[in-house]
C-alpha cells in the first residue's frame, strides 16, 4: 500500500502541469463550497444572534391574545405579569414589555403605531433604551427605529403629537421627543414601533404592572405556559430564519454540484488519458506480478490523490482567504434590512469542523469514484498486448 501511494504520488507529480491544473480546479471546489456554506451558516448564526440581541432575548412569553400581525389584538392583549416571574424580574433577566396601539401625527398625517413600553435600564435587548432616561420636562422621551424614521420622515430631535387611549378608552395625547433613532439588523423592531419608558406608558394607559410580552434572557431554563401567558421558545421565534437559509442553501447546492461536476470532468479526462498512454506501464506491472485489481487500485489511488493534493493546495491559499473572510466579513453592497428579516450588511462566515470534514470527504469520495470508473478498463486488458503498448 505504501509503495502504491508513493508510486501514485510520483506519477502525479511527474505529470506536472496537467496534475496541477486538476488540483487547482479541485481546490477551487473545496474553497468555494466551504466559503459559501460558511456564509450561510454565518448568516444563520448572525440573524439569530441579532434577533436574540434586539428582539426576542432568550425567548418570550406572549399574552395569549397577542398577535404581532394584528394590531387590533393589542387592545385585549395585556395582563399583569405573573407573580412567578418576580425573581427573574428582580434580577433583570426578564423584562416586561407593554404594547399599546397609538397614533402619531407627523406633519398632520395620521399614522398608526405600536407604542412599546420598555424599561430604560433593561439589559436584555440592545435597543438603546438608556436614552429613555433623558429628562424631558415637556414631552415624553422616545426612541424609534431607522425604518420608522425613514417611512414617516421623523428625525432625532423631532417633536410629534402622539395620541392613544387609556384602559378605559379615554383619549390622551402628548408630545413625544425623539431622543434617538437606532438601526439594527432586525426590521421587526425598527418598523412601526415607538419605544417609551415602560412605567410612563403604564401610567399613561392605567395599566399598572401589566405587560403584553415578557422577554427573558435565559433560554436554557425549562419553561411552561403560565396561565394566560404562552411560552415562545427561541427556536420557535427564530424558525423563519431557518427557512430562508434553507432555500438559499438548496439553491446554492446546485452550484456546488456543477462546480464539482466540472472538476470531475477534468479528473476523468486525465484518468482516461493516463490509462491510454500508460498501457506499457500497466503491462509491466502485471508482468511483474501485480494482480489486475492491484493495478486498478494503483490508478484509482493516483486519481484520488488529486483530491488529496487539492486539499493541501486549498489549505495553502484557502485557509488565509477563509480566515480573512471570517475576520473581515463579506460586505454586501446593499442595505439588507428591508428584506423583512434579520440580515446584516456584512456577513461573517462561520466554518465548522463538520463542514470542512464533510466537504473533504465528499470531494475525495467523488474523485475516487471518478478515478475508478476509467480504471476498470485495465482489468479487461490483455497483459501481453498491453506490454507491447497496443491500443486496445
Amino acid at each position, binding site marked *: 500500500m505504501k509503495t502504491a501511494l508513493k508510486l501514485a504520488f510520483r506519477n502525479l507529480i511527474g505529470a506536472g502541469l*496537467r496534475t496541477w491544473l*486538476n488540483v487547482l*480546479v479541485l481546490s477551487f*471546489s473545496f474553497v468555494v463550497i466551504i466559503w459559501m456554506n460558511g456564509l450561510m451558516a454565518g448568516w444563520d448564526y448572525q440573524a439569530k444572534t441579532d434577533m436574540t440581541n434586539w428582539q426576542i432575548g432568550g425567548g418570550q412569553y406572549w399574552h395569549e391574545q397577542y398577535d404581532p400581525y394584528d394590531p387590533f389584538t393589542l387592545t385585549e392583549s395585556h395582563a399583569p405579569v405573573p407573580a412567578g416571574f418576580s425573581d427573574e424580574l428582580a434580577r433583570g433577566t426578564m423584562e416586561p414589555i407593554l404594547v399599546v396601539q397609538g397614533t402619531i401625527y407627523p406633519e398632520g398625517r395620521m399614522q398608526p403605531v405600536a407604542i412599546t413600553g420598555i424599561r430604560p435600564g433593561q439589559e436584555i435587548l440592545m435597543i438603546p433604551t438608556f436614552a429613555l432616561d433623558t429628562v424631558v420636562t415637556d414631552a415624553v422621551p422616545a426612541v424609534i427605529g431607522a425604518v420608522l424614521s425613514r417611512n414617516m420622515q421623523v428625525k432625532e430631535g423631532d417633536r410629534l403629537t402622539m395620541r392613544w387611549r387609556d384602559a378605559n378608552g379615554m383619549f390622551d395625547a402628548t408630545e413625544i421627543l425623539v431622543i434617538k433613532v437606532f438601526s439594527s439588523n432586525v426590521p421587526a423592531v425598527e418598523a412601526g414601533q415607538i419605544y417609551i419608558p415602560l412605567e410612563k406608558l403604564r401610567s399613561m394607559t392605567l395599566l399598572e404592572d401589566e405587560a403584553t410580552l415578557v422577554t427573558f434572557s435565559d433560554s436554557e431554563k425549562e419553561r411552561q405556559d403560565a396561565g394566560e401567558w404562552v411560552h415562545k421558545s427561541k427556536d420557535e421565534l427564530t424558525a423563519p430564519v431557518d427557512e430562508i437559509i434553507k432555500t438559499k442553501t*438548496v439553491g446554492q447546492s*446546485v*452550484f456546488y454540484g456543477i462546480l464539482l461536476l466540472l472538476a470531475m*470532468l477534468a479528473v476523468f479526462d486525465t484518468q482516461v488519458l493516463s490509462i491510454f498512454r500508460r498501457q506499457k506501464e500497466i503491462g509491466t506491472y502485471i508482468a511483474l506480478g501485480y494482480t489486475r485489481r492491484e493495478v486498478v487500485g494503483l490508478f484509482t489511488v493516483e486519481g484520488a490523490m488529486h483530491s488529496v493534493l487539492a486539499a493541501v493546495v486549498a489549505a495553502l491559499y484557502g485557509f488565509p482567504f477563509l480566515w480573512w473572510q471570517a475576520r473581515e466579513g463579506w460586505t454586501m453592497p*446593499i442595505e439588507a434590512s428591508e428584506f423583512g428579516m434579520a440580515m446584516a450588511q456584512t456577513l461573517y462566515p462561520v466554518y465548522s469542523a463538520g463542514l470542512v470534514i464533510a466537504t473533504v470527504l465528499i470531494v475525495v469520495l467523488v474523485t475516487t469514484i471518478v478515478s475508478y470508473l476509467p480504471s476498470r478498463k485495465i482489468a479487461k486488458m490483455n497483459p501481453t498486448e498491453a506490454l507491447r503498448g497496443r491500443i486496445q
Partner: protein
Amino acid sequence: MIKFLIKGLIRDKSRSRLPVIVVAIGVMLTVFLHAYITGFMGDTIEMNARFSHGHVKVMTRAYAENMNQLPLDLALMDVEELLNNLQQQYPEYAWTPRIQFGGLVDAPDENGETKAQGPAAGFAMDFLSEGSREADRLNISKSIVRGRMVQEQGEALLSDDFASKLRVEPGDEVTLIGSTMNGSMTMYNFRVAGTVSFGTEVLDRGSILVDIEDARLALDMYDAAAEVVGFLQTGFYDNEMALNTASSFNNKYTAAEDEFAPVMKTLSQQGSMGQYVELSNVWAVYITMVFVLAMALVLWNAGLLGGLRRYGEFGVRLAMGEEKGHVYRTLIYESVLIGIAGTIFGTATGLFLAALVQEYGIDISGMMEGSSMMMPSIIRTRITPVDYYIGFIPGLFSTVIGTMLAGIGIYKRKTSQLFKELEA
C-alpha cells in the same frame, strides 16, 4: 487545408470524439450555470416584481410618498386613458392596474348574522379581462388549495388559513367591509371561488384577492387605481431599460406641480430593490467568473491531454519530413475546430437544459415544507443573451491555449523521441 483537417478529425475518433465531448460538457455546464445563477438571483427580483413592485410602477406623486400606508385617497384617476397612453408609448411593457387595500372580511351564518370576522389585506388585480396575465404572474393556479380561480365578477380568493379561520368554504359568501377612496365605510359581497396559499406568512394569514372591477365598485374607485404596474414583455427585469422608460415618462410630467400627477418608478427605485438588483448582478458576475476560470483550467488540461495523446503521430509526421512549425500549426487549427464544435454543441445542450429548467423549474418545495417566507419554491434558470456566447471563453480560448502549451512539447522533444513514442 481546413477540409483536410476536418476529415482527419472525423476519421480519427480518438482525436475528435473525447476532446469534443469534454469541451461540450464543459461549455454546457458553463452555459447552464450562468443561466441558473441569473435565474436564481433574479427569482427574488421577479417575485417582488410580480407581487408588488412591477418592473415599473406608475402612481401619483402623493401615493408614492406614502406608499407603505396604502393611501387610496391618493390613487390615480382616469386610469383608462393613462393605460391607453402607456400601451401606446411603451408597448414593450404589459400594463395593468392594481389596488391594494385593507379591510375586514365578515362571514355570515345562515341568518345573515356575523359568524366570524377578521382583518384582511386586499389585492385587486385584473383577473378577468381578456388576455390578462395577472393570474399567471401570481402563479395562482399552482397556489390554489381548494376551489378554483376567480372566473366572474363578484368572486374572490381567500388565503387558505384565513378561510379556515372564518370557517368558510368555496361557494360561501363573505362581505368585505372597507373604506372607499373617500374614506366612507363600504360593504361588498364576494363569493369565495377558492382558497390559496402562497407560502408566505404575511400573505397567507389574511388576504383576499379580487378582480379589479369588483374592487373599484367596492371602494368607489371608478376608473381609478392605486397603481399601474408594467411588466416587460420579455418577462424579465432589465434595469437599464426600466430606468430609461421611467425617465422618459417622468420627463413628460415634470412641468406638473400637481401632487396627483403620475410618476413612474422602476423596480430598482422602490424600497431597497435597487440594491438587490445591484447585488444580484455583482453576484452573478463573481460566480460566473469563478466558474469560467475553473472551466478554463479544465479545458486547458483537456488541450494538454489532447496534445499528449498524439505525440506518436507527431513523431511519424516529423520523421516524414514535416516542419515542426507546420505540425504545431495544424495542431492549433485542429484545436480551434474542436473548440468551435465543442462550444456549439455544448452551448446548444446547455441552452436546451436551461430552457427546460426555465420552462419547468426545479421544484424545491418538497425541501421547503412548512416555509412561511416569501421564497420561490421553484428554482428556474433564466437564459440571457450572454448565454449564447459565454461558452466560447472556456470552450474555444482555453482549448486553444491548452493545445498551444501542450504543443510546445513538439519543439522541445527530439524527432527521434517522438518517433519512439509511436513505436511504443
